[in-house]
């Protein structure tokens, strides 16, 4: 099994939907009018519905209810809207996983919970950008999807070994496949032309000491560990990873804040999952 072959096969994975690419282009344009962006998003009814649901969820804690895309864009801002469109797009790109691995729903529940947790930690700790942390959290395990889709047998064997407590899943991925989800995730993000901050968080969330200059990496490392402890969905991991003490310190959090943050993660995640997942 050669990991180069796996990387070559990534090209066969679906591209990001057109609506996302157009939204990204519109946001990057120097003379972008919010109305143009709103019209673009409204051209996709299911995307519009999800964006409004998430904008009205506790994630943004808005004082008033928003019922038009334009109103949502003015209140949550274009960066948050961009990230919401990307998350919704990714969920439509990857629809199913081979049976016998983890369910796609469970994978996205874990990813959304990690996004919510990372955003809250960034907000409370004051060291990382909450919107960047949100998207980095959402994307952190994206490299597992090609592993499940392209190498279901080897990945199934790695999962079984993990469930028999033979080691952490990311170590077993290397053992069984010669590559792990952090490396594949970073390649995917480069392929989709997403910024460096997200690539670092994806490639180093299990090795945060490699990305000391990116505060979002430490935040995602801690968010992933918390979400695995709370058992909110799963991307395959069943056992809580090892906490890097330095990464914990770099989040800016105090251990006394932990119980309140854990409660907030549980509450917000429930709402955000239903906003994204219910059709």
């Amino acid at each position, binding site marked *: 099994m050669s990991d180069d072959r796996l990387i070559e096969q990534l090209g066969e994975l679906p591209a990001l939907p057109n609506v996302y690419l157009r939204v990204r282009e519109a946001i990057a344009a120097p003379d972008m009018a919010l109305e143009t962006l709103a019209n673009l998003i409204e051209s996709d009814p299911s995307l519009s519905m999800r964006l409004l649901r998430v904008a009205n969820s506790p994630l943004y804690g808005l004082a008033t209810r928003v019922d038009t895309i334009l109103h949502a864009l003015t209140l949550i801002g274009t960066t948050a809207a961009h990230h919401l469109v990307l998350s919704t797009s990714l969920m439509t790109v990857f629809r199913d996983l081979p049976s016998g691995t983890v369910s796609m729903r469970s994978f996205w529940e874990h990813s959304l919970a990690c996004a919510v947790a990372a955003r809250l930690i960034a907000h409370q700790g004051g060291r990382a950008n909450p919107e960047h942390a949100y998207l980095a959290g959402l994307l952190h395990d994206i490299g597992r999807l090609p592993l499940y889709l392209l190498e279901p047998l080897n990945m199934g064997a790695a999962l079984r070994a993990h469930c028999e407590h033979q080691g952490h899943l990311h170590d077993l991925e290397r053992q069984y496949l010669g590559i792990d989800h952090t490396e594949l995730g970073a390649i995917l993000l480069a392929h989709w032309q997403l910024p460096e901050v997200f690539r670092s968080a994806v490639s180093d969330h299990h090795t945060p000491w490699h990305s000391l200059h990116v505060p979002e990496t430490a935040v995602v490392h801690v968010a992933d560990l*918390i979400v695995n402890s709370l058992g909110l969905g799963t991307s395959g991991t069943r*056992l809580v990873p*090892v*906490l890097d003490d330095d990464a914990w310190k770099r989040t800016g959090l105090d*251990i006394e804040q932990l119980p309140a943050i854990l409660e907030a993660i549980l509450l917000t995640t429930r709402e955000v999952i239903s906003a994204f997942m219910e059709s």
Partner: protein
Amino acid sequence: MRLTEIQPGMRLAKDVHDPQGRILIRAGVVLSERQIRLLRSWAVADVCIARDEEAGDLGRRHPEISDELLRSIDTQFSLSNRDHPVIQALQAFCLSRMLERRQG
């Protein structure tokens, strides 16, 4: 503990390294027959085995918790660094959340 006395199912208390200092098997791993053979092939003579006191301690502190619940939390955190205060706080939070759920 001498490698000759190790049985499958025992849990490592410390990382096992090869002569170059690379980690062969991490602390917290429950040893399988295959891993014990691997250790023999690396000529590892002694490994440090966990005495599983964490679950026992929790059980003594919370006599109302069933063994099954203790075992599931213990397994979930078995590969983490349980000497870290944040991990201990997380484990305590998860335990109380599970208890609340059981009691409805």
